């Protein structure tokens, strides 16, 4: 019943391998050439249906970075130490290193925007929208450490994100400029050959790009390119233009991986209720001891 699942790789027993090899030997050359090629819908477009997730550490910091003790630090007697709010996390609160996903390595900030990024970083606990379970924005939603599911038919493309239950209806007919500014923006998609191109704008400028204070304004325009590079892999590229924040357009590039487990399904991470103590705990009649 589930065509996505039927493509899932499974451990092959010896006899199954032999059968597969034997069968392959009798397949027409054209079919063999297509093995490993990308799935397609009946309309011929690549079939990007499925549950996808980025691997790696871009969600901590999209620029290349070394591991560090924590995102929020304070001066220590010898070297900076993690802020008291997160000391209890120990190594769980530490930041793993990452190669970054910014093409060229560095975000071309305008001077004032770079200053703001650094201030954001200093004030991460207060400012990162993820901490309050706010909607993630684009492109951050695509490389958070949660999967998202693409629903694609001949007439509709819709993304559902596990994190905060965020959604994007990718309009295949352009409704014109966004009528309201939103966290997730308005997305318009089209096929450029085998590449699904999405132009997203109409942002409210409140979302971030990662946990390291990288940011943008409401003028952001994102051009995304989703390219299947195999049955279970997509190359995700996004070009960000925002003359209020960046000196030139710049691009991120990373692979997305399909969840291939037979029972893969998007979980529910409705984190609004998880952050009530953080956001409203001080307003309880009897605040919980801290």
């Amino acid at each position, binding site marked *: 019943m589930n065509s996505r699942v039927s493509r899932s790789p499974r451990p092959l027993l010896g006899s199954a391998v032999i059968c597969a090899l034997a069968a392959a030997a009798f397949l027409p050359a054209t079919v063999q050439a297509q093995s490993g090629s990308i799935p397609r819908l009946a309309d011929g477009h690549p079939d990007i*249906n499925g549950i996808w997730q980025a691997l790696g550490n871009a969600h901590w910091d999209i620029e290349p970075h070394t591991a560090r003790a924590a995102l929020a630090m304070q001066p220590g007697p010898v070297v900076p130490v993690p802020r008291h709010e997160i000391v209890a996390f120990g190594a769980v609160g530490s930041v793993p290193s990452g190669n970054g996903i910014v093409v060229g390595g560095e975000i071309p900030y305008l001077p004032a925007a770079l200053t703001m990024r650094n201030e954001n970083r200093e004030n991460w606990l207060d400012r990162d*929208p993820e901490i309050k379970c*706010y909607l993630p924005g684009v492109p951050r939603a695509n490389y958070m450490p949660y999967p998202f599911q693409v*629903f*694609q038919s001949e007439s*509709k493309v819709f993304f559902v994100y596990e994190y905060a239950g965020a959604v994007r209806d990718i*309009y295949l007919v352009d409704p014109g400029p966004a009528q309201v500014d939103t966290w997730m923006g308005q997305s318009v998609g089209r096929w450029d050959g085998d590449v699904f191109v999405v132009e997203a704008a109409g942002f409210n400028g409140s979302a971030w790009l990662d946990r390291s204070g990288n940011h943008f304004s409401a003028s952001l325009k994102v051009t995304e390119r989703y390219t299947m590079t195999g049955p279970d892999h997509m190359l995700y590229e996004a070009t960000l233009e925002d003359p209020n924040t960046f000196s030139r357009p710049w691009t991120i590039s990373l692979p997305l991986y399909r969840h291939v487990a037979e029972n893969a399904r998007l979980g529910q991470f409705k984190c609004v209720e998880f952050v009530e103590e953080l956001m409203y705990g001080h307003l309880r*009649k009897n605040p919980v001891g801290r």
Partner: protein
Amino acid sequence: MVTCARTPLADRRVFEVQRFGPLMLFAAASMLAVTPSAMEAQQTNERWVMPRTADGHPDLQGSWSNATMTPLVRPPGVGAVLTPDQVAALEGGQQDFIREQLADSDPDRGLPPVGGEFTGNFLFDAGGGAVGGYNFFYIDGGDDIAVFNGEARSSLIVDPPDGRRPPLSEEGRRRTGERFASQRQFGAYDNPENRPLEERCIMSFGSNGGPPMLPNYFYNNNYTIVQTADYVMIMTEMVHDTRIIRLGTPDPLPAHIRPWLGDSWGRWQGDTLVVETTNIHPEQNLAGYPPAAFKPSENIKVTERFTRADEHTINYEFTVDDPSMLSGPFSGELPFKALDGLVYEYACHEGNYALTNVLMGARAQEREGVSNQPDTR
């Protein structure tokens, strides 16, 4: 026939309670002036051909609204099917009210009375309309009666035949009693968890997200459906909740995993999509508002049927069966009408100043020694 029968129509405020309160709107139906029928039986475009997806199933995709004036539960003294005159009076009354509310404010009007100017429209007043809160720029609760298979319905519930949710079972009463006892340990404003799900931006009010997916009689009753060979995805505008309905033989979640909108599995039965849902979150509001609302048990099962009826309509049928809570199952029917417009982002939590202010206000009242508990007179 109804309690308002002795109420002088000249008493505008009481009259409007009868005329506009969505949960009791039918009470006044038969006493309103008889006007020429404004509603004709639903006409189906004879040339309409069922749209189908590439795999041959009916195409349910697009954006839809289930906003309607028809309440879930049938008011007493009203038949299951309304007459054209009743429909005209009810719809006309609501539309007049909306028109009145949309008019420019009179800049020379005097001060409103202390506590606000109550119209009697329950949800309008509850939404702050009486004190200048939500007006009909925001409110879009539906201004027409639900027509299903050509019948103007007085309630969404059609079975039991009295249009009412069956009473709680003995076990259901026990469980509900325990829940209330647990809640009574706290004041209404003591903690965020003591506030309703919709105020906390966790769920829509009126159980828009479902299942069953019911109108909230207030606003944002919109849905987007996307359909693939393996899934039907239904996004509810309010709080952007999605139901990811898997098609095929159910492989249900373990009993202890209970997502807010449950675990849904679908199958095509001819041209009807049949969806069965279990494992609904124990705190989810089933069946909207009182008197029908209840909290689902671990044995809840909701069955829904989606059938394209015409170019503009999906016929939506549901059956709720919770043997641990209810003395019997109940079923309902309502149309989902094609939405001519975009569904916008419903970022509730991100702008939830209300919950902060509600709690902060309660703490301030406590400091001043003022009672802040709801008036239960």
